[in-house]
């Protein structure tokens, strides 16, 4: 008989060893902080501590006492303030740390537990310094469940994950629960797919569970392609074992013995961490031929994508794993019936899988106690754009946009990054398949259904805040350009339709649109939504349709008056000479390719609107900034 894997022994051993640590220095090692120089900080800690004779280790020791531990963590979400350094147990939280700050941190905080005042985060309105994360509004107003351990634990240390109760849920699922019980528990929790569609996860699992087949697959969809979204990246970088644990539970639930994690290759750090996590779990016998010491088998392969957005669509993703062009196939048959290599397959998003262990561990009822009735639980969002605090956040469903943007995000900024209380214009939710929401939606509780009812969708959870200087037509054009580029070309409505929609939007920004343009755009959008093969095409017109609905006036101004209120569409702007600044040097007259500028020497010049082709050559030529981009 096999003996079961003793998670408790690993847990106690880790906790005992952790007791010997005096202080722990945690350096955020997410993509954001790494780019801002987290590695340099880490090396400086090692160098300076050796010079000063301060005992710092980079891993837990068995025998030693009274030393300090230095580890990296996954993304803590506050990327723009990086590199971030936290000192435990006090929880003192430093932002924008530079290598030259390290010796002071060692002397004051590591040795004496005192904060270094100038490195603390200062509230942008109150100016008050915040000693710990919990003193900062950005963190205080969040409910971190999926991200609870992201940013605390060392993502490359499986024992630390286990010491916090990790893999207990998977062990329970594998050794104590029947497959149908697992699926029912997930169904009862009301967990819905976080990848965009919001399909009940338990229903998907039950469909695959019912199938009788010698081979079934579990796929983790980590092909997070929505521009402006990085939740899945952060979870994989910060807590990769939670995803693997979710996959083991899913495999137990449907009876699968093989799994794939399909990651974007644009996320090299996430790829590395998830690969390492799979290796460590295999070494411990949590993955492999005898998981947790039972006779069950489950292995995981990590596959990197090759840069195709459409592979986020489940049937396209499977085609890509099979070594084909990543093009979608019509459903039914659903993957749960006939998926990867024709076998029953479930595909879940990273965040969905990371939510699973908590449900198995604490029960469906506990999971339902947060969030709304139809959308239980929490949701992570990537908050970016013109907002004071950009970063990764997690809130319960039912939270309003106002709370997210103004309480957590700290308000809207102008183009220079300064707080502008009147600056809010719109927020784009759900990336290229979502829509724009306006001030009137600020108090709407966010959930899967509330957003669909107003023509947007949660999508994967990108929230891009836009200030009043943003031209909404340009935003719609940006998304249309994106979906047009990424359309795989298999079905005509998406391939040709998005091209036409893009060129109609170009007509508007170039000043070539007429009164029919908007009507054609609207009808074309509806047709593409109805007729496209996969989710990419079905949702591609959303940004444009929401623009037509909520920013009608702005778009009509572009068409009827040939004017861009935000002054972003160059072709609609006629340059104007600012008389007070113009010294009449004549340089612009020489540069103008169509002879549209005239004027006496040493007298303010003027531009003939009828001749001007709006090329901007005069603006560039003027040394006195005396020509404005116009109106």
């Amino acid at each position, binding site marked *: 008989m096999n003996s079961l894997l003793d998670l408790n022994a690993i847990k106690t051993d880790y906790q005992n060893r952790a007791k010997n640590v005096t202080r722990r220095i945690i350096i955020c090692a997410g*993509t*954001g902080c*790494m*780019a*801002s120089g987290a590695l340099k900080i880490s090396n400086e800690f090692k160098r300076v501590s050796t010079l000063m004779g301060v005992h710092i280790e980079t891993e837990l020791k068995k025998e030693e006492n009274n030393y300090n531990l230095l580890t990296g963590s996954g993304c803590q*979400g*506050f*990327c*723009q303030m*990086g590199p971030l350094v936290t000192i435990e147990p006090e929880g003192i939280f430093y932002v924008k740390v530079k290598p030259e700050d390290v010796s002071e941190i060692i002397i004051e905080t590591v040795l004496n537990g005192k904060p270094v005042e100038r490195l603390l985060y200062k509230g942008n309105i109150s100016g008050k310094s915040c000693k710990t994360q919990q003193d900062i509004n950005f963190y205080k107003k969040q409910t971190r469940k999926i991200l609870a351990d992201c940013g605390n634990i060392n993502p490359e240390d499986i024992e630390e994950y286990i010491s916090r109760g990790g893999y207990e849920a998977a062990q329970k699922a594998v050794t104590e629960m029947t497959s149908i019980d697992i699926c029912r528990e997930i169904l009862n929790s009301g967990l819905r797919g976080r990848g965009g569609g919001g399909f009940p996860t338990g229903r998907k699992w039950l469909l695959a569970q019912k199938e009788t087949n010698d081979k079934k697959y579990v796929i983790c969809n980590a092909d*997070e*392609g*929505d*521009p*402006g*979204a*990085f939740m899945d*990246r*952060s979870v994989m970088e910060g807590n990769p074992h939670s995803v693997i644990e979710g996959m083991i539970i899913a495999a137990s639930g449907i009876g699968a013995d093989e799994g794939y994690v399909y990651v974007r*290759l*644009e*996320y*090299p750090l996430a790829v590395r961490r998830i690969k390492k996590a799979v290796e460590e779990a295999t070494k411990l016998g949590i993955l492999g031929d005898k998981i947790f010491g039972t006779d069950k088998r489950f292995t995981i392969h990590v*596959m*990197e*994508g*090759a*840069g*195709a*957005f459409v592979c986020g669509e489940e049937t396209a993703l499977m085609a*890509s*794993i*099979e*070594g*084909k*062009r*990543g*093009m979608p196939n019509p459903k039914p048959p659903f993957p749960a019936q006939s998926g990867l*290599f024709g076998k029953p397959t479930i595909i879940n998003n990273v965040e969905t899988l990371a939510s699973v262990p908590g449900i198995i561990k604490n029960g469906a009822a506990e999971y339902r106690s947060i969030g709304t009735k139809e959308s239980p639980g929490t949701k992570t969002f*990537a908050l*970016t*754009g*013109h907002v004071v605090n*950009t*970063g*990764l956040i997690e809130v319960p469903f039912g939270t309003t946009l106002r709370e997210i943007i103004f309480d957590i995000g700290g308000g809207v900024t102008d183009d220079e990054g300064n707080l502008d209380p009147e600056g809010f214009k719109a927020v*784009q939710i759900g*990336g290229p398949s979502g829509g724009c929401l306006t001030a009137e939606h600020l108090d709407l509780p966010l959930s899967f259904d509330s957003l669909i009812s107003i023509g947007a969708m949660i999508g994967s959870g*990108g929230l*891009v805040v*836009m200030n009043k200087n*943003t031209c909404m037509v340009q*935003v719609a054009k*940006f*998304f249309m350009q*994106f979906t047009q*580029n*990424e359309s*795989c070309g298999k079905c005509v409505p998406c391939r040709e339709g998005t091209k036409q929609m893009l060129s109609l939007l170009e007509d508007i920004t170039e000043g070539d649109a007429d009164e029919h343009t908007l009507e054609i755009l609207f009808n074309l959008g509806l047709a593409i939504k109805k007729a496209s093969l996969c989710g990419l095409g079905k949702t591609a017109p959303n940004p444009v349709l929401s623009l037509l609905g909520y920013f009608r006036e702005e778009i009509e101004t572009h068409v009827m008056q040939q004017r861009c209120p935000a002054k972003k569409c160059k072709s609609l702007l006629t340059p104007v000479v600012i008389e007070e600044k113009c010294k009449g040097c004549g340089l612009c007259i020489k540069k103008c390719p169509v002879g549209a500028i005239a004027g006496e020497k040493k007298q303010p010049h003027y531009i003939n609107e009828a001749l001007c082709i709006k090329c901007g050559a005069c603006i560039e030529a003027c040394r006195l900034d005396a020509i404005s981009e116009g109106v």
Partner: protein
Amino acid sequence: MHKHDLGQAARKFAKVCEILEKYDYKSDKLVPILQAVQEEYRYLPEDVLAFIATTIDISPARIYGVATFYSHFALEPKGKYVVRVCDGTACHVKGSNPLLSEIRNRLNLPKGKTTTPDLLFTLETVSCLGACGIAPVVVVNEEVHPLMIPGKTTKMIDEIMEKERVCDEQFA
């Protein structure tokens, strides 16, 4: 074919054979195979693709189809430094376009070209790197440059050019 040519061909494809061996000559591993080949050659040479097709017994057309479908694969050599300007939503609204045109100007890239004639630089855009908190972002090979502004990008390119010039001089 002369014996000499055969030897050369074998040497040329030795690395490819290693890669194919690693993936067990399985056609469903085509995407990782091509990734490994591109890692080795910095692009997918035509004769290598034909060799793979024959070896794992699929049509060259299928390989070509896969190689052209994914934006990561290149059928022409890429530069030593691949400069990727992120044009995700967050980077876009924070001004990635001016960065792109600045780098394009600095590299003197004509319209429609992405690689400099000396094969030193390739300029690309990427739809999102997930580093939106530090937008706009430019990535050179694997190195992420956060919070870029016009001016900083030119400096970045100049530094690489300077480094390469010094290297060349040492060789000469």
